[in-house]
């Protein structure tokens, strides 16, 4: 895509990053012509969308089929009290454009599933997984793998978060976490809870990874799982390798097409679920 020279307004708006040696006017133009999808306009998606908008990513896609709920307001800072009951994609789009009218926002008011995920992600340069359930995280991992789109995986729960960047050819989510937990086995945010600021920390790291990827700078968090323990203030980088037995990207893949995960019964034998 040919890049237009920056206008005076753009130079002023983005001056604080243009003066960075690793960005410059050329980097800014690259951001302006980039397309990033944010899957899930929730806790993680909120800061990611806002910072990508502020940084001038030219096209931001938002995929979310839900409406804003009062319980979201504790951490999904792109949604305000007055947005309750509104489709999340509309609420998000409004704030993104208020931050930066120069950003083109594409809304996908759908819940991602095996039928639509491939087509949706294929239209973007980078995807941010801002989903709030593990089945969706596996779907995004798989969709980005089949469509060869780089993405940022992340998850938050209680006082912990994790993050990894997946490029075609690097360790994928399934290399380590093979299949989703069975229904009911792992509490969701609504059952276990999550401290709101975790979303800010991890979501911002996701946006940072996206920008680094688009600009081609720094070292991406590939083949690495970053874990964050907010209570102990520990960031831990766990080195990973692509798993030859991975059921998606290994030598003998068992997953060859995008499919919705079947909801298995929890069979660990515990009585507490």
């Amino acid at each position, binding site marked *: 895509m040919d890049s237009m020279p920056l206008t005076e307004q753009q130079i002023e708006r983005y001056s604080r990053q243009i003066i960075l040696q690793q960005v410059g006017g050329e980097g800014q133009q690259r951001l302006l012509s980039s397309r990033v999808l944010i899957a899930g306009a929730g806790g993680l998606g909120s800061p990611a969308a806002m910072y990508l908008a502020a940084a001038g990513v030219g096209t931001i896609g938002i995929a979310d089929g839900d409406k804003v709920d009062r319980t979201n307001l504790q951490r999904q800072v792109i949604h305000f009290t007055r947005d309750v009951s509104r489709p999340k994609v509309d609420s998000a789009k409004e704030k993104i454009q208020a931050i930066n009218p120069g950003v083109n926002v594409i809304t996908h008011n759908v819940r991602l599933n095996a039928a639509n995920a491939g087509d949706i992600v294929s239209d973007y340069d980078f995807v941010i997984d801002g989903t709030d359930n*593990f089945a969706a995280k596996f779907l995004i991992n798989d969709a980005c793998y089949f469509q060869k789109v780089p993405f940022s995986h992340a998850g938050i729960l209680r006082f912990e978060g994790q993050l990894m960047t997946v490029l075609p050819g690097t360790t994928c989510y399934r290399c380590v*976490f093979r299949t989703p937990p069975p229904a009911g086995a792992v509490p969701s945010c609504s059952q276990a809870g999550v401290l709101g600021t975790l979303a800010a920390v991890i979501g911002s790291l996701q946006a940072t990874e996206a920008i680094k990827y688009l600009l081609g700078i720094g070292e991406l968090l590939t083949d690495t799982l970053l874990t964050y323990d907010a209570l102990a203030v520990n960031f831990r*980088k766990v*080195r990973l*390798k692509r798993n030859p*037995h991975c059921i998606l990207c290994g030598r003998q893949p068992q997953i060859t097409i995008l499919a919705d995960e079947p909801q298995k019964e929890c069979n*660990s034998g*515990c009585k507490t679920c």
Partner: protein
Amino acid sequence: MQFGVQDMLKLRIPDSIARQMLEHAAAEAPLEACGILAGRRAMVERCYKMKNAEGGTDHFMMEPAEQFRVVKDIRAAGLETLAIWHSHPDSPARPSPEDIRLALTPGVVYIILSLKSGMPDIKAFNINDGNVTEVPLLAGLPKRNEPGTDTAAS
């Protein structure tokens, strides 16, 4: 061999060790990974990655020859065996009936690292005669004046 089966009240695992455990578990997935943690006064100082002689996705077994080498190494370093850990690539961080049945070494904590929850989950347990109680795991370095630290209050 530990004498005295006093249950451990807590175990502190420094970051570098937790990272090694996660790396070993991830690298071995989908097979179960296992290891021995050694240290002093409930503070882990070393992680020994052990071979899973069973080579199973739902079983693990250490090799006696390797165990003997490690136990002697721990002793030579002036440390104690504090914990035996293994991973559950496909199930939660809880001892299974088999884990409980085979928790034979007295005086150590049993740690399970699960990769099933979508995020790594590490939990520790005292297992005595079939009784399982969770042991809190702490990270990093002890704070000043925490019981068990070497430094005197100043």
